[in-house]
């Protein structure tokens, strides 16, 4: 463009011609929409490459090697994955992770939607209650986990103290000692932490539904349940699905709550992929195997992410 401007300038004066030839390259670049587009997304792309793609491909490289923290190791193909599949602790951990995620997300969904519907109604101190509901989500994971550790403590469980002293039970529950109950306990804490996010997100969706639709459906004779079934649910569904997918992803890869409460015990009954990966990769220095454990989360998360992205693309295209 610069050269053509110089050639067709038509003034013949050396000064103008000189200015046109020496046009600032940045200006030239900005004038080119295609180049400008690349320029504008470049920082984000670089950031993603450095912070997401590079570690991700490094993790794949590690998972295909017998690398330890002290030794770069050699390429061993899929051997880490084969060995993992033969390992009872890994198989138990994989099952735990699915149960943990399914259980926690179900509780989040039921309580979150219920809470959102309640908070959408008018009552005194509604704003204060809405703010208070967010507390489990706002409190740092470690603090929340420590509080629950005291509630579940094998020696001094506050919950058991209440249950026993109110006459409801004689001995209380083995919250973190019984393997099945321990898994339930950790997923309960995870759900406690996640319910506010679900509730507030769904509440935002509920508030975006025009009142006219409810009025019209009422005039048509729809009852409370029918209004929920045919007005609320379809309109809140996009928001609900987004919150659901995010909840699944976060729960599936949760570390802090399980590690803080049980470190994966008793007898690996609460180990999830993230805690086993930490124990193997960092505590035992077996970084190749640790990366392989982490990567087994990938297929599940990838399916969810692709599905979510397609949904977003469809909704923006409409």
């Amino acid at each position, binding site marked *: 463009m610069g050269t053509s401007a110089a050639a067709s300038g038509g003034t013949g004066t050396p000064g103008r011609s000189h200015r046109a030839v020496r046009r600032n390259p940045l200006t030239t670049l900005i004038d080119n929409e295609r180049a400008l587009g690349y320029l504008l997304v470049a920082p984000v792309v670089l950031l993603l490459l450095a912070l997401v793609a590079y570690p991700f491909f490094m993790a794949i490289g590690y998972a295909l090697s017998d690398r330890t923290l*002290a030794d770069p190791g050699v390429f061993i193909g899929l051997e880490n994955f084969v060995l993992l599949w033969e390992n009872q*602790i890994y198989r138990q951990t994989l099952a735990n992770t699915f149960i943990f995620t399914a259980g926690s997300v179900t509780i989040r969904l039921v309580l979150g939607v219920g809470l959102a519907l309640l908070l959408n109604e008018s009552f005194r101190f509604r704003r204060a209650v809405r703010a208070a509901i967010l507390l489990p989500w706002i409190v740092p994971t470690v603090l929340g986990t420590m509080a629950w550790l005291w509630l579940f403590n094998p020696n001094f469980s506050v919950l058991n103290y209440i249950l026993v002293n109110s006459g409801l039970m004689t001995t209380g529950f083995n919250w973190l*000692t019984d393997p099945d109950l321990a898994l339930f306990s950790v997923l309960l804490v995870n759900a406690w932490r996640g319910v506010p996010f679900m509730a507030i997100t769904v509440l935002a969706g509920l508030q975006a539904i025009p009142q006219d639709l409810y009025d019209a459906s009422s005039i048509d004779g729809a009852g409370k349940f029918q209004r929920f079934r045919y007005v609320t649910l379809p309109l809140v569904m996009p928001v609900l699905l987004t919150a659901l997918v995010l909840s699944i992803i976060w729960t599936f890869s949760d570390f802090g709550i399980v590690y803080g409460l049980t470190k994966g*015990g008793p007898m690996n009954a609460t180990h999830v992929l993230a805690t086993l990966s930490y*124990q193997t990769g960092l505590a035992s220095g077996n970084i190749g195997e640790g990366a392989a454990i982490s990567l087994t989360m990938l297929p599940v998360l990838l399916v969810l992410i692709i599905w979510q992205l397609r949904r977003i693309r469809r909704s923006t295209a409409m």
Partner: protein
Amino acid sequence: MTQDRRPARVSRRKLLAGAAAAPALTLATPSIAQGTLRGTKLTILAGQWFVPQTNAMLDQLAADLARDSGMEIKVERFAGDELMTKTASVIGSGRGADLAVGVEFDTHLYGARLSDVTDLADEIGRTYGGWMDSARAASVTGGRWKSLPIGQAPAAWNWRTDMFRAAGVERFPDTFAGLLDAAKKLHARGTPIGMTLGKASGDGRSTNYPVLWAFGGKEFEADGRTVAINSPGTLAAVEWYKEIYQYFIPGTTAWLDPDNNQAFLASKISATVNVNTIYLASRAAAATDPARKNIVDNMDHGQWPSGPAGRFACYNVNVWLPFASSPNKAGQREFLKAWYSRTFLPRWTKIGESYFIPQLVGFDTEDVWPADPKLRIFRELNKINRLPGYGGPPTAAAAEAVNKYILVDMFAKACTGQMTPRDAVAWAEKEYAQIVRRRTRT
């Protein structure tokens, strides 16, 4: 009893004077004399030792050395497992610190990334009458010293003399059959014992490995590669554990490191395996807290009972890890020399009252032992430490088994009835075999 609780202040000048008076550990310091350390940096990673004075002495040593050498020394402290994570990240990245307080496994997991300090270890050994076997086991890999032992923390049976007496048991049992019998009687009186069967990084191993060894069980053969866990000895240990478990306080399979301390301090249990910290904490609070005074007056420390194969113990060992990636090797060595100097190490040991005891033969006759009669047993306990993997040398495979709680879970699975003792041993054998298979692949 009056205890000197002031943090000891050891100046570099005093330290050098002490070194001069003890020619065996001259720990010559040309680097300081020539000023070559001036302007260099030294970052030390440390946790929080339970006895606060031991932490204060480390800080003071670093400050004095910084002043005298011109080095900029920073002691970064991390809580619990964070120290292990930070150390792992330094090992992995080769950046972030020059020295760290680690555990004995680290030497075997990270040996290739640690500096060779054999000459220093030899010099320290000569000064203090030689290293104990547990020190070599902790710090020597491939025939070279890749770390320097700070000390071992003997775990004793903490027991309530009043509760045992009330149950008709006058002394702490000297055999495993005796311990089982005592546990029954104590349980019947509502004062059960408790042994940690959860994922407790310290108490998990100090409580469970001695049981295995006392019944003749072992993880590996002498070559350190052949898995030997499936043996009549291991089975006998598991069966004993299963029997005594029914007399424990409920909840021990979920116990993390603080839980047995808390149960003992709340008088909910009559005995447990722990270092001297239950007693030290109680004694510190006894003046203002009658409940703690009651514990101090009515507790004592006992050693492990003897089993068919003998009497064993498994203590946590702390070591100095000198990172090979450090750009300040001279500073590393200067700090280590200061730590092991005669003017520092005995004082540091004494102030901990047998919390951590350097595994140096000569310390048996040094003035480092606590005067408190209830802590006297630790001098004897200090002589019988074995590291995980015993039967063979300590290896990275043995370290990984500890970090994965294989032995603890083997006992726990049998105790809770999740598996029969035989199946629990077979499960552990499979896990050990997989660890060895991975570790010996290259």
